[in-house]
C-alpha cells in the first residue's frame, strides 16, 4: 500500500478544496470546466506524460468527488459543468462504492519476479536450492528465472543475500484481499463489484490514481446549503486527525454548518456491552468462538465470501448503527451524517441503515470543508462534549485490539477469562486463514477483525499517518483530566 504522504494525496486534497471553495461561493457550475486548467496550469512540470492528461485526470477526480459512476456514465464530450448541474439537481445512488478511471490506468504487466544485475552468481545459490519448481537457471554466471516454470512464490527473493531478486507487483491486484480487482482484455483495471468488500485498499495502492471512490460528499454539502439541520456523528478515529482538541473540533464542525456533533464512541459503548453479554453466553453454553461486528468491510467479507462466519459474528449493531438510533431519538427532526475514516461505512449505511443515516463522508473530506471555509480547528473556542465518562474508553474502538479491550472491560468475569485473537488487517493471507476456521476453529473465544492494519486510524479516509495519529491520541489521553 502507498505511504499516505505522496503526490497523489496532496493533489487530491488540492482538487477537493478548490471544488468546495467554488461550491460554497455558488460558482461551481460556471467554474467547473475551468478548474482542471487552474489546478494544472500551463507552467506545471507534469508527472504524467503531459499536462493534458493531468487535466483529464483532474476532471475525472472531480467527477468522482461529485459521486458520478465514471465506469458507466463517462462521456468525454460532455462538459464537467453539465455533470455538476445534474448532481446539483439529483443525488447519485451511493453504490457501487468504487469506480475506475481507465485513462489513468497504466496497464501494469503481470506480477513477476525478476533477477537484477545485483546477482553475483554466488556459490551457495540459495535461490536455486529453494525454488520449489526448479525455475532458476544460471547463464553466464548469473541467475535467471524461467517464466514458464515460475509460480511467483517469492522464495528466491527471501533467500538472496544480495537482494538481487525484485518483485514487480500489480499494486491494485496485490492489495485486494478478495481478488475483486482484475484486468480486462485490453489489460486495464476492472473491479468486480459483486465481489468487492469496500476496504479501499486498491484505491490506496494505485500510484496512478486509476481507482477512485465515488464520494458521498455532495449530498451532504447540499443538505448543509439548504439549511437543513444535520447532526454529525464522528467516528472514534477522528481524535489525532486534526490539530487541536476534540472539543475544538466539535466547535469547528458546528461552525462548518452542522447542527450538533455526537461521538460514535457513545454507540460503541452499546456495541461493547452487547458483545460482552453475547460472548458470556457463548462461553457459558460452549458455543465456540465469536467475532466482532463493527468493521463494515469484514461484514461484507462474511456476507459475500465466507458465509460460514455469519453464525459466528456478533449480533450487535455497529457503533454507527447504535449512534444513528441515538441521534434519531434525540433529534427526531434532524438528518444524520457519519464522518469517519472508512469507505465501507458507505456500503454499510446504504445496505443496512438506509432510513437512519443520510450521508457518509470521510475525515479527508471534512478537512477540505474546513480549508475551503477557512475554519482553523486550533483557533476555535472549545465546545463541551458533555459527559463522556461512561463511553470515553470506547474511543479505543479505532485502534487494533481496542474493540476487544472495550468488550473485556464490560465482560462479567466470574472466573472466565476469554482468549482473544485480533485479526489486524485483512489481506489475502488472513482471508485464507479465516476460511479454514470452518474446519478448524481458531484458538480463541473472541476474534476481533479489522480490515485496516492498525485499526480505523489507518483507514482510507484518514489524513495523518497512523504513527502520528497514535502519538496525538496518546497526548490527548494524558491531557484529559480524570478520564477512565
Amino acid at each position, binding site marked *: 500500500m502507498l505511504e499516505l504522504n505522496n503526490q497523489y494525496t496532496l493533489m487530491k*486534497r488540492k482538487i477537493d478544496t478548490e471544488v468546495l471553495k467554488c461550491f460554497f461561493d455558488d460558482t461551481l457550475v460556471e467554474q467547473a470546466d475551468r478548474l482542471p486548467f487552474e489546478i494544472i496550469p500551463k507552467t506545471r512540470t507534469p508527472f504524467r506524460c503531459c499536462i493534458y492528461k493531468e487535466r483529464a485526470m483532474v476532471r475525472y477526480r472531480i467527477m468522482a468527488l461529485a459521486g458520478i459512476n465514471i465506469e458507466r456514465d463517462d462521456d468525454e464530450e460532455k462538459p464537467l459543468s453539465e455533470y455538476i448541474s445534474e448532481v446539483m439537481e439529483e443525488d447519485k445512488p451511493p453504490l457501487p462504492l468504487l469506480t475506475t478511471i481507465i485513462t489513468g490506468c497504466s496497464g501494469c504487466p503481470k506480477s513477476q519476479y525478476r533477477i537484477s544485475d545485483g546477482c553475483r552468481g554466488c556459490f551457495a545459490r540459495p535461490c536455486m536450492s529453494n525454488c520449489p519448481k526448479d525455475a532458476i537457471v544460471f547463464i553466464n554466471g548469473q541467475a535467471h528465472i524461467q517464466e514458464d516454470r515460475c509460480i511467483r512464490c517469492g522464495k528466491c527473493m527471501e533467500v538472496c543475500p544480495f537482494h538481487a531478486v525484485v518483485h514487480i507487483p500489480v499494486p491494485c491486484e496485490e492489495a485486494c484481499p478478495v481478488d475483486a480487482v482484475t484486468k480486462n482484455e485490453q489489460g486495464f483495471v476492472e473491479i468486480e463489484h459483486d465481489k468487492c468488500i469496500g476496504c479501499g485498499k486498491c484505491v490506496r495502492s494505485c500510484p496512478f490514481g486509476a481507482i477512485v471512490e465515488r464520494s458521498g460528499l455532495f449530498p451532504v454539502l447540499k443538505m448543509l446549503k439548504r439549511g437543513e439541520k444535520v447532526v454529525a456523528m464522528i467516528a472514534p478515529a477522528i481524535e489525532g486527525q486534526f490539530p487541536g482538541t476534540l472539543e475544538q473540533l466539535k466547535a469547528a464542525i458546528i461552525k462548518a454548518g452542522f447542527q450538533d456533533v455526537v461521538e460514535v464512541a457513545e454507540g460503541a459503548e452499546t456495541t461493547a456491552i452487547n458483545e460482552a453479554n453475547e460472548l458470556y453466553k457463548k462461553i457459558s453454553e460452549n458455543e465456540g468462538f465469536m467475532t466482532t461486528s463493527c468493521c463494515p468491510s469484514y461484514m461484507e467479507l462474511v456476507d459475500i465470501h465466507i458465509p460460514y462466519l455469519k453464525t459466528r459474528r456478533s449480533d450487535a449493531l455497529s457503533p454507527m448503527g447504535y449512534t444513528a438510533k441515538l441521534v434519531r431519538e434525540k433529534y427526531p427532526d434532524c438528518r444524520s451524517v457519519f464522518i469517519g475514516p472508512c469507505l465501507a461505512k458507505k456500503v454499510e449505511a446504504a445496505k443496512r441503515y438506509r432510513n437512519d443515516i443520510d450521508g457518509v463522508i470521510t475525515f479527508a473530506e471534512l478537512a477540505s470543508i474546513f480549508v475551503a471555509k477557512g475554519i482553523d480547528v486550533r483557533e476555535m473556542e472549545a465546545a463541551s462534549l458533555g459527559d463522556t465518562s461512561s463511553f470515553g474508553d470506547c474511543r479505543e474502538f479505532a485502534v487494533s485490539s481496542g474493540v476487544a479491550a472495550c468488550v473485556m472491560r464490560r465482560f462479567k468475569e466470574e472466573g472466565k477469562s476469554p482468549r482473544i485473537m485480533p485479526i489486524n488487517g485483512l489481506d489475502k493471507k488472513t482471508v485464507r486463514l479465516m476460511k479454514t476456521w470452518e474446519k478448524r476453529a481458531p484458538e480463541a473465544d473472541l476474534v476481533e477483525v479489522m480490515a485496516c492494519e492498525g485499526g480505523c486510524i489507518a483507514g482510507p479516509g484518514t489524513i495523518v499517518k497512523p504513527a502520528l495519529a497514535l502519538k496525538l491520541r496518546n497526548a490527548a489521553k494524558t491531557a484529559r483530566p480524570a478520564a477512565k
Partner: protein
Amino acid sequence: MKKSKVKVRICLGTACFVQGGADLLLYNDFVDPAILAECEIEGCSCLDECKVGNGSAPYVSINDKVYSGVNQDMFCKLLAEAVKNA
C-alpha cells in the same frame, strides 16, 4: 559561549496540517538526532502565510524566517543548514 538553539515553528493551521504539515510532527523519526539536539521545535498557530497567497502549505518558520511547501526532506536540509549557520 553557549550557542542559542535554532527556533523552529511548524504551522498547525488546519490547511497546513492536512496538506503535509502533520507529517513534519514526526520529526523524531526522520531528522538526525544530532541536529535535533540543537533545535527547539514546536507547533504553532496559523502563521497566516496561506492568507497572503504566495507559496503553498505547509509553512515552517525557522529563526523567524518562513519557508513554504516544506516536506520531510526539505525540513531536514533546512534544519541542518540553520544549525550550521547558528
